């Protein structure tokens, strides 16, 4: 079976790769591009550990085929921080101790970033429903929600 050639943008950089027809975007990121920050927790779209942003929307990369990335704009956890500083939501996760094991963290950060890109003043309820597709088993979500609230405030300059 011949492989599919894909040209896409990952974290603002043009990349090309060959993938098999059945390979998911998650497999491509982790196995072909070496971007292992995106995690696999279920491969059925239930846990959100593999969240990436595709053309501005949060997507479970386990539910997207690698071939579907052709011509798209993919953002992963590896692209969240600038070389010299963390994104406010990364910084607030650290300040709030909003992670324990850290496995779900990349997915939460990517999802939260997508929220804050479109709404810099979300209510607690909006944050909770926006992040309802990301499972965390360690924190009980309290510190995650507070970190996102404070990141929003920081981004508003409040």
């Amino acid at each position, binding site marked *: 079976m011949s492989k599919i050639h894909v040209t896409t943008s990952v974290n603002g950089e043009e990349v090309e790769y060959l993938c*098999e027809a*059945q390979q998911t975007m998650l497999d491509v990121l*982790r196995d072909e591009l*070496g*971007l*292992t*920050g*995106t*995690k*696999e*927790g*279920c*491969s*059925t779209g*239930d*846990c959100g*550990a593999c969240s990436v942003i595709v053309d501005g929307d949060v997507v479970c990369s386990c539910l997207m085929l690698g071939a579907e990335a052709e011509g798209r704009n993919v953002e*992963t*956890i*590896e692209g*969240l*921080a600038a070389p010299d500083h*963390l994104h406010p939501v*990364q910084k607030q*996760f*650290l*300040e*709030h*101790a909003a*992670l*324990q*094991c*850290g*496995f*779900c*963290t*990349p997915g939460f*950060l990517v999802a939260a970033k997508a929220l804050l890109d479109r709404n810099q003043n979300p209510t*607690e*309820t909006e*944050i*909770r*429903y926006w*992040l*309802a*597709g*990301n*499972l*965390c*088993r*360690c*924190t*009980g*979500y*309290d*510190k*995650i*929600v*507070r970190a996102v609230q404070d990141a929003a405030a920081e981004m508003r300059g409040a």
Partner: protein
Amino acid sequence: MGQEPVETKWVGKRIVRPDGVDKVTGRANFGADMNLPGMLEAKILRSPHAHARIKKIDTSKAEALKGVHAVVTGADFPELKAASVDGGEAQVNLKDLGENLMARDKALYDGHAVAAVAATSASIANDALDLIEVEYELLPHVIDVEAAMKDDAPLLHDDMFTSGVEPQPKKPSNIAARMEFGAGDTAKGFAEADVIVERTFRTAATHQGYIEPHAAVAEWTEDGQSRIWCSSQGHFAIRSMTTALLDMEEAELRVMPAEIGGGFGGKTTIYLEPVALLLSKKSGRPIRIVMSREEVFRGSGPTSGSVVKTKIGATNDGKITAGEVELKYEAGAYAGSPAMPGCMTAFACYDIENAKVVGYDVVSNRPKCAAYRAPGAPMTAFAVESVLDEISEKIKMDPVELRMKNAAKEGTRALYGAKFKQIGFEETLKAAKDHPHYSAPLGPNQGRGIACGFWFNIGGESTANINVNPDGSVTVVSPNPDIGGSRASMVLMAAEVLGIDPEKIRITIGDTASIGYSGLTGGSRVTFAVGMAVVEAAKDVVKQLCERAAKIWEVDFEGVEWRDGAAHPASTNVGDFDPLTLGDLAAQAGKLGGTVVGASSINARGAGPGFGTHICDVEVDKETGRVDVVRYTAIQDAGKAVHPSYVEGQMQGGVAQGVGWALNEEYIYNDDGQLENPGFLDYRVPVTSDMPMIDTVIVEVPNPFHPYGVRGVGEVPIVPPLAAVANAVSHAVEKRMEQLPISPPRLLSIIDG
């Protein structure tokens, strides 16, 4: 009077965790992130049957598939000896461990591993699994714990004779063990009671639900230097169990700890590592095995479902006169449910003169249960705390007051034997009563529940190394995987002893070849026990630095004292010397006999029991049966919170798991004994929108046996929530909840009568 809190400079500060940036940037390497040149992917074939004899396995077609490099079945493993092996906390039965890892004669549950394939890609390995032909002879199965205890139940093991019964039965059964604890005379106690409540409670099997599936990478080498990279709650235990099953010496295997994506007890055993290593040996290539979520549910964890009969008597003025508990815990396919700690914790919060607890450890055709956060305690707490709630209603006494009147305190002898030293249970009750949550008004269809919980906490074997670098910075080597921020706690404690800024200290987790043996990351022991090892290693560094300062100053060792990160003359009598800082002494280390390395190896003793009291408000939708937790407050005695944010995090996380256990989570089996909900869609853990903020109150009653007063904190918080939620729902609907989970259909049928 009890021990007073210790003044600290760094212990108690909320620093950013040392591994934090790696974990928010995606750089941290978890089990599945390891990639070796030439690595193959492996997959495991699992039994679709609940109970079947394996008559024949034909792997020839799978082996012939292009891209397949090796296939293993139970027959490829060394013969299992009747022996026990170190499991990091306790000895484990080697035969059960090996048979659970890969079935030999019988598959004992849906999901039991029967073969494994290594191939050039995961998809080829999956294709190859379909080509393995297993001839099964189906056997009758049993899932339910009480059905499994019946005389005519299908037998899982024909050599299982109930232990703890005198004389030991000659007829095999599914009851692995009976256990009993008692004190006083319960018949006399019940005769003195004004009110007696007796009920039977049931809980479903629940999974730990860590988000990272099990993963291991193994590389066998022919010269006795094999390596495994995996995420676990203790790489030394992975080494001992893997080498025991593969007839290797421990020095022949080096286990590298990956970051661990949650465990909660579920990553204290092995499912993949020996299989990966054997496939590597057979194929000559490195092997990676990563479980799918479905495999995690079918083949790992969970904790026991339970049936707990509870009877408690009390006087009208709230004195508990007697208590009895009879519990039956599902062990899964092999002996070893947490029935024993279930018995031991049942009445541990209370000072009860007349009590009796009987437990049964029962096998059935389910996955072998694994430890899950305070193993065994949440189920008995659900039963006991529910009955106490009902008694408080009957005698019209405030439920906190009832508990206060019977609370265990210093000097109380727990039913399991230990006499408590300084403990903080009463302080948690008082904090609950004083908390604004406790007296806040409730809305329509709302109810409030309170419940308490206990966990022993343990110590155990622990090591630590501290290297003083030539520039005066410091590296700590810890032997235990950091599952929830323990690196931060270790650094804080090292900084406290060394008297330097935590920013000067970096910490790494040593592999099995880099540091001495340590027990598991479990039992709420790491911050307490490994922390104690770090404190000892730091004291060792300070001692060596003071010795060197004494030599430089040509004074006695006693004439030197260490404070604020420097050696000072202990008094003006010693002489007038400028302080020698850690940096000064490190820079001259070579001239003073070599680099300074602090080391410690201890068997940490003096673990301090932990207690918690929780307050939960729920709102019930009486049309759909949905329960929303609308407010929650968790109060716990931490002894001393080394890093308060991570203590709060443990409390909040335990609450969320307990809420899931109470409201939604359960293993559901069909009539053929197959698990029907092996995925997060149908096994529903709480999500962000299910939870409110979780308020926390950390009470600090010092553990007199720890230098800073630390108690373990990780397990207590999952003990009270089952009953706290159930009591709240019971009040909201004015009917007593006896079975978990209180899922919408179940609650609806209760409301509708």
